[in-house]
């Protein structure tokens, strides 16, 4: 099962190496790992997608919390969250196929960000399932290359009671 783990870490050199090294040393499999700044310049957020049973993920969470520059660890499993991936994809698009491809892009609320002689570069964001669905839909035209950010996530806030 896939777990989304969010870790607040100190924003200083070597932190990524500490975290990545721990994952490698303990033979945990990472699906994706995203690091970025937060609202606090002293902290970065790592969003890590780990595959494993509950026991493995529990170990991941605990071992991650043990890494000295890791400040806070949350496992989002079972929580309402918003999770998003961003993808740039270059699709083989000869002029006669372009209208069809563009309508596909619109269906996925994607954006054409570069037009080449034989290709279109498209930006798509959304939950991972949407990204995967877009890739599958584009496959018949020919995918030249894909660049993905990996998942970032945030828990949803409690709804206002009426």
């Amino acid at each position: 099962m896939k777990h989304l783990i969010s870790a607040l870490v100190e924003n200083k050199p070597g932190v990524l190496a500490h975290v990545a090294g721990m994952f490698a040393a303990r033979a945990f499999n990472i699906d994706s790992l995203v690091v970025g700044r937060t609202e606090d310049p002293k902290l970065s957020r790592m969003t890590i997608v780990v595959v494993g049973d509950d026991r493995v993920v529990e170990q991941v969470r605990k071992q991650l919390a043990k890494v000295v520059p890791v400040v806070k660890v949350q496992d989002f499993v079972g929580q309402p969250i918003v999770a998003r991936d961003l993808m740039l994809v270059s699709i083989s698009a000869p002029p006669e196929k372009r209208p069809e491809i563009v309508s596909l892009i619109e269906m996925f609320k994607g954006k054409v960000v570069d037009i080449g002689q034989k290709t279109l570069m498209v930006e798509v964001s959304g939950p991972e399932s949407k990204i995967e669905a877009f890739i599958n839909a584009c496959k018949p035209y020919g995918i030249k290359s894909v660049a993905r950010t990996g998942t970032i996530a945030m828990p949803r806030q409690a709804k206002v009671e009426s």
Partner: protein
Amino acid sequence: MKSKPCNSKSTVKAGAQIIVDTLIGEGVDTMFGYTGGVVLPLFDKLYDAPINFVVPRHEQGGCHMADAYARASGKVGVVVATSGPGACNLVTGLATAMMDSIPMVALTGQVRTELIGNDAFQEADTTGITRPVTKYNCIVKDVKDLARTIREAFHIASTGRQGPVLIDIPVDVAVAKFSADGPVEIDLPGYRVRTKGHARQISMAAKAINKSKQPVLYVGGGVISANASEELRALAEKAHLPVTMTLLGLGSYDQRKAESLDMLGMHGSAYANYAVQECDLLIAVGARFDDRVTGKVATFAPKAKVIHIDIDPASISKNVNVDIPVVGGAKEILSELVKEVEYEERKNWFDKIAQWKKKFPFRYDQDSQTIKPQYVVDEVCRQTKSEAIITTGVGQNQMWAAQFYKFTRPRQLISSGGLGTMGYGLPAAIGAQVAKPDATVVDIDGDHSFNMTMTELATAVEHNLPIKVCILNNGYMGMVRQWQELFYGKRYSKSYLSNPDYAAVARALGAVGITVDKKEDVPKAVKKMLAEKKPCVVDFRVEREENVWPMVPAGKSLNEMDGLDILERLI
């Protein structure tokens, strides 16, 4: 020109002076280490610092000395090495300390900041190399961070689940000047330690203990790190619980007491292993369910509910599912727990244990014509009245030391448990003797373990340390040979070397050397060794193909021990 005194009012100091002053501020009065190019500024400041400094013959030896110093004293061990090869030579020692959760601070020199990454002379990516073998490490690139980082290193090393911390210091940072007055506060937002146990969990544990008919306390090195032996004794006595210990836990509970089941695990006592397999409640304290302890995990303590008291939340349910976890310090939790437990006689359980104890004690052939290695340990135990500090190599020598020396107090056995580092015994004896100058320190070693670090004998001689080394010399890597005998059709592939005359080596290095090849000479050789004021090496030519029994073969359950028939025949 003399360096400025440590209590100088001058506000501007070189990085190297800040290092020395911060170490002294942390209470360091003893260090181990080896000099070299990029640590010259630091060693210059150490020249007239009030610190007892021991220079090993190899950085690995220095690292083991600092580790054993920590184990014997309970203080943080400190080791220094230069960049590149110096730092690389610390790796085995750091990994040894990491696996056994020993508080250490290692300081390494690094090439100048602007050369880092250029493959400079004696450059190595020290933080990269040592990251997996330290609790934490970092490089200090700005002299203003130096004092704080060193203080943080001591805090991290000595709290929570203890461990080694390495700080890499480029030479330009050691030379740079900085105005370093005023207190330096540590700043570790990601490092929190919980020592107090959850009250409800403790109550649940107490209820389970009070209800249990067949409980066993399973105690590891965590109790010794936490200085919680008194609390352990109080709990075992008040609730009336049998106590078994891991290799690193030995000494936490007096083995002369009736409740002691001695060591458990692969070469543990049959009575401890049977008790664990039969118990209805296993109370683990500061132990981590290592594979050498559990045997086959799936069938480990199959009837037991498991309580696990540990400072490290990640140890809980890592290998074995835990029913009642209590995260926190052993000392704090045990002292709370003892208030809530009640005395229970558990006569049937203790009778059963007494029967196992009677039937399967640790034994060896006392009528043998040759010197049995166990006999040497037995004799050392007898003559030192169970009071010596024992260090060990790794392998058969280590297991016989654990089986036949009866430990009575914490910090008495100093052995590389988790990593199993051959060559640990001699430098460990030196570190322990430096920590406890008045104690009798005996290294029970194997010939091949001793071969790995015997150069450190020169260090012991130089510092007039009256350490004793008992080499159980069987001419083999004994434990490897035992496995080859049992599992590889006696094909003794590369498991023996030609050994030197150890007594002559000892004498050449300025120590006392004795060779013993007759059984009847053992007692007087031990007596002479114990009376020596100089380092003394005794080369006991023991039975060559003696095996360690009992033995739980890899992948078997604890109750499936081999060798019990052999032990029974010895009655």
